[in-house]
Structures are given as C-alpha cells and as structure tokens.
C-alpha cells in the first residue's frame, strides 16, 4: 500500500464506525478492503432447492393434472370442430366479425380453431413439464477437451510414417503436381457458377427505349398524347410508343416510364428545363435516382414530386432537383417536342442513365 493511499485508509476507519471494521465503503471497493482480488472466486454452488406446490400438496398436483388435461382436451375439441367446420361452412360465406368487419367466415373460423388446437398442445405440455415433471437440479461437469499426450504422440507418428512410406519427401514431382491437381479443380466448379449469373449487362442500364421521334403514349392505354390535351396541372403517366415492339415489356417499362406534367412556363426556373419541354409541358423519368422506385406523387400546387419508398422529394420547378430525402441526383429530363400532327414526341433519348447509381454509370 503506497503512502498516497494511507490517508484514505484512515478515512475508512473513522467513517465506518458502527458498521464494524470489515465494512467496505461503496466508493472504495475491494482494493482498499482486503488488499487485492481473491486468487479464485469460490463456486457459490446451486441455489437452495425450493419445492413446488405440486410437490408438497397432493391437491395442488391434482389441480395441475386437471389443467393440463383441460388444455389437451381443448386442443382435441378444436381439431374436431375444425373438421366439422371444414365441411359445414361454405367457403364463400361471409359474416360480420367484431373488430374485423365483413370477413370470410370459413378462413377466420379455420384459422382460430387451428390456433387453439396447436396452442392447446404446446401450452399443455409446457404446463405439465413445469408443474408435474421432476424439477431436481442436476449438474454435469465439463470434460477437458485436450486429448491425452499419448494419443497426440500417436497421431503425429502415424502421419509422419505415412508420409515417409508414400515417399512424399523423396519425390517432389509427385508432391507439387498433386498440389496443383488439388488446387485447380475448384475453378471448374466456380466458373459455371459465375457464368450462370447471366450475360454481362453491357449498356442496358444506360439506355432506355426512348429515341428521337418516339411518340409519348399513355400508360396503360398506349394512346398518343396531343400537346393541347395536357392542361395546366395535369399529370400523364407515359411510355414510349415503341414499347409495343418490345420483347421484354416489363424490363423496358421499368426503365422507360416517364411522368409528363404541365406547369405555367413562368414557374419553371432553369432555361434548360423550359427548352427541353414544350410550352410548359415537361417530361421526367419516373424512376427514382435513389433505388429505382416509381416517383409518381406529384403535388400540383407545390410542384413537388415525392417518391413513396423513401420520401425523396424533387422540385419540378428546378429541373427536379432533390430537395429532401436520400436521392443524390435530380431525375433525368426527357427532351420533348411536337410532331407535324401535334402529338408529343421525344426529341432525343435520355441524356444520362435513368434510375439508381451503378458502378459503370457515366462510362457506357
């Protein structure tokens, strides 16, 4: 004990008066008390065994027995009613069930009965084990895991003798060719696994179906849209007309979906957005730049476009700049114009890849 600690020792003796000299103050701990931690903590052993009600009182045991039997009986009963209900109730029949409303009676009744049948067995079994099955504590000591020295010795001897007998040390040619033969075959297994992941995507992620002159058509009717039909405040869900020739409609739709809106041209701030649109009609990719959900929640008063998945919010008056949420890039704009018949057409494909980021983005 150092000199530094001495005054605190004094304090302990003076303030613990009345509690006996062995009492340890909470702010001092073991180091001050007996000097150091004990070499080993003693095994405190098992807590004293407390007998259960059913162990002491025969009537309590009888009661527990009845409870378990009731639970098992309830389970059997539910199963029998289940079988009856299966045939008795018309599967189309509906009924008003409090808390649920108008519901299919067949499904609800079968579900509830099945729950009672299974829970009855489970709860009954657990209750049986807890109240009536033996509950004496028993201890099984853990065996040491280390093998005996003799066994360890024998393994080493066996291996060395085997190696010598096989002439591994004398014939390195065999040793190294064997190593190669064992190391390479896994490649034959790995290659088809990687090849089975499918063809390389090439530029599929960077391109959509949109091309110059492709008419904008309504989703799902696929009818072309005249510019004068798009009144201010309108929103159209749009696909390229060429989707009708698509071999993989869902894949192509997932990239080419476009939202068409008409704003007051005065409200559009960037000149680029106005130039790429037509008289306040602007078309933006509907695929969120965060993880690719369809961004369709257009608020016509604030001109905010909200993505329903993670609440990324884009401002249509500012070239769909991200103003809230996890998206990092604005939605790509589709440059549109009108053809000789007054229908809206794409003036160019998307200038950048639509949708979420990927490794090769901007390189293809």
């Amino acid at each position, binding site marked *: 004990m150092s000199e530094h600690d001495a005054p605190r020792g004094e304090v302990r003796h003076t303030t613990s008066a009345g509690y006996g000299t062995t009492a340890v103050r909470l702010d001092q701990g073991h180091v001050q008390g007996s000097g150091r931690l004990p070499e080993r903590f003693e095994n405190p052993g098992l807590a004293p065994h*407390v007998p*259960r*009600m*059913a162990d002491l009182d025969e009537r309590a045991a009888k009661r527990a027995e009845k409870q378990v039997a009731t639970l098992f009986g309830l389970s059997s009963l539910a199963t029998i009613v289940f079988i009856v209900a299966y045939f008795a109730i018309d599967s189309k029949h*509906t009924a008003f069930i409090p*808390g*649920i*409303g*108008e*519901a*299919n009676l067949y*499904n*609800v009744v079968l*579900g509830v009965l099945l729950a009672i049948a299974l829970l009855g067995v489970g709860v009954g079994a*657990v209750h049986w084990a*807890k*109240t009536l099955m033996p*509950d004496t504590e028993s201890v099984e000591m853990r065996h040491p895991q280390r093998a005996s020295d003799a066994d360890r010795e024998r393994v080493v001897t066996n291996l060395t003798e085997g190696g010598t007998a096989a002439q591994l040390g004398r014939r390195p040619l065999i040793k190294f060719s064997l190593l190669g033969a064992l190391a390479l075959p896994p490649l034959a297994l790995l290659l088809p696994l990687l090849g089975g992941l499918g063809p390389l995507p090439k530029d599929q992620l960077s391109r959509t179906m949109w091309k110059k002159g492709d008419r904008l058509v*309504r*989703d*799902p*009717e696929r009818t072309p*849209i*005249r510019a004068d*039909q*798009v*009144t*201010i*405040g*309108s*929103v*159209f*869900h749009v696909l390229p007309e060429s989707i009708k020739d698509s071999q993989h409609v869902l894949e192509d739709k997932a990239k080419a979906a476009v939202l068409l*809106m008409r704003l007051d041209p005065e409200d559009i701030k960037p000149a680029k957005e106005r130039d790429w649109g037509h008289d306040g009609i602007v078309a933006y990719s509907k695929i969120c730049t965060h993880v690719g959900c*369809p961004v*369709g*929640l*257009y*608020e*016509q*008063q*604030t001109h*905010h476009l*909200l993505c*329903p998945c993670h*609440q990324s*919010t884009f401002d249509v008056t500012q070239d769909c700049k991200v103003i*809230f949420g996890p998206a990092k890039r604005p939605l790509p704009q589709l440059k549109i114009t009108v053809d000789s018949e007054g229908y809206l057409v794409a003036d160019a494909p998307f200038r950048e890849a639509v949708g979420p980021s990927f490794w090769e983005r901007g390189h293809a």
Partner: protein
Amino acid sequence: MNALAARRRHPAAIALLLLLGLVLTGVAYSTFAPKQADASPAAASQVEEGKKLFLANCSTCHGLQAQGTNVGPSLAGVGAASVDFQVGTGRMPLAKPDVQAPKAKVRFRQPEISALAAYVASLAPGPPIPDAQYTKGDGDVAKGGELFRVNCAMCHNFAGSGGALTRGKYAPSLRNVQGKHIYEAMVTGPQSMPVFNDANISPQSKNDIISYLHAIDKEENVGGMNLGNLGPVSEGLFAWVFGLGLMVAFAVWLGRKAA
C-alpha cells in the same frame, strides 16, 4: 321571274347562290342538330340564390366578387364540378386554415350546393358537374383497376386507403366516396391533386375507375383483419407489437419456475 332568269348569268349570281346555300344549311343544322343536354345556363334565380349563399358563407376568404384574397384563391374558372366536390364533401367552408382542407360534415343541402355551383359556374367557364351516366360505377372493374394502379395508386394506395404526401399533406382515403365526387376530383384536381382531364382519362375510363373503387368498397376481408390495407407499415407494426409481444410473453412464462 323573267327578271331573275335574265340575270342568271350575272357575275354576282354564283356568289349569291352560295351565300343562300350556306345560310339555309346553317339554319337547318341549328334546327335539327341533336342538342347537348346542358345544365350550365342555369336559371337566373338559381344563380341569384347562389350569389346570396356565396356572399354569406364564402366571401370572407374568396372575396365579394369571388376574385380571391390572400387567404383564399379566385374561383373564376374553377367550374361547378369544383364547388360540388369541395362543398359536397364538407371540405368547404373551411373551419380553419391548415395544410389541407379535411373531409368534414357537409354544411349545405344539395339544392344550396347546386345554387352555389351555378353561381360560381356563371363567373367563368369551367368543368361542369359530370353526367350521371359516367359516375354510376357500372363500368369495367378490371380496366378501372389497371387505370387506378397506374394513375392513382401511388398517392391513394392500391386499395384506396389514402397515404401521406409532403409536409403534413395527404391523399385522402377513397373508401365509400360517391362516384360523382371521385369524378369531380379527377377533373378539377383539388388541392395537391393533379388534374386528370377527360382528354387524359376519358369519361368512360373514369367510370371504370369509379367501378373499381366501388367494387373494393364492397369486398369482404378474405384473410381476416385487413389492418387498414396500409401495407407494410401497419402489418409490420402488428407483427412487431403483437406477434413479437406474444413470443416474449411465452418466453418469460417458459423461463419462470412454477409456484
């Protein structure tokens, strides 16, 4: 007759004849052409009554001439459909300014609403109250469902349960809404909702959408409680609170010694 016959080769004769033909055709067309049933040139008395109701109930916010003030927009050109929707669903008159006018108790009887609508429609042309044949909901439910999922479901939820928008605004539930009000909302684009005019979604397609919504109103819950049809939020909450709660309760019970 001779005088006419004598002048039949006069240079003006052709022009006169053409003019006569055009006038006759025009008169005949306007006489025999089928007329559109139109309720918009409402009786002057109805407009007058509507104006009185407007001055008493709406002019505080919308201005004495419905020209709009800094607390309420101008009503010129919003049309009868807008009035019928806003007043007919209790959204107007607005009890207090908020992010959005909520659906509320309807304050006026239908004749009063019609009078208000007639007055506002008389200010400037706008979408009229839709023809009843397109709001009955007797159309193609499957096609309506497809149109609903493309055009409406992102805000109003796949089952029309409604959903959240930005900054406290929301898309209301479409459960048990009259077909007329659904149609009017699509045509007028109330509040945050964009406009879906008849050139975008035809009246017949709007009827299909109404049919779809009415069909899901009547649909029973096949699998028990539907949890509001709100999708993963309410289902997840239910599973985490009740499902997991039940399992924790069983685990605690399993771990306790019997008395």
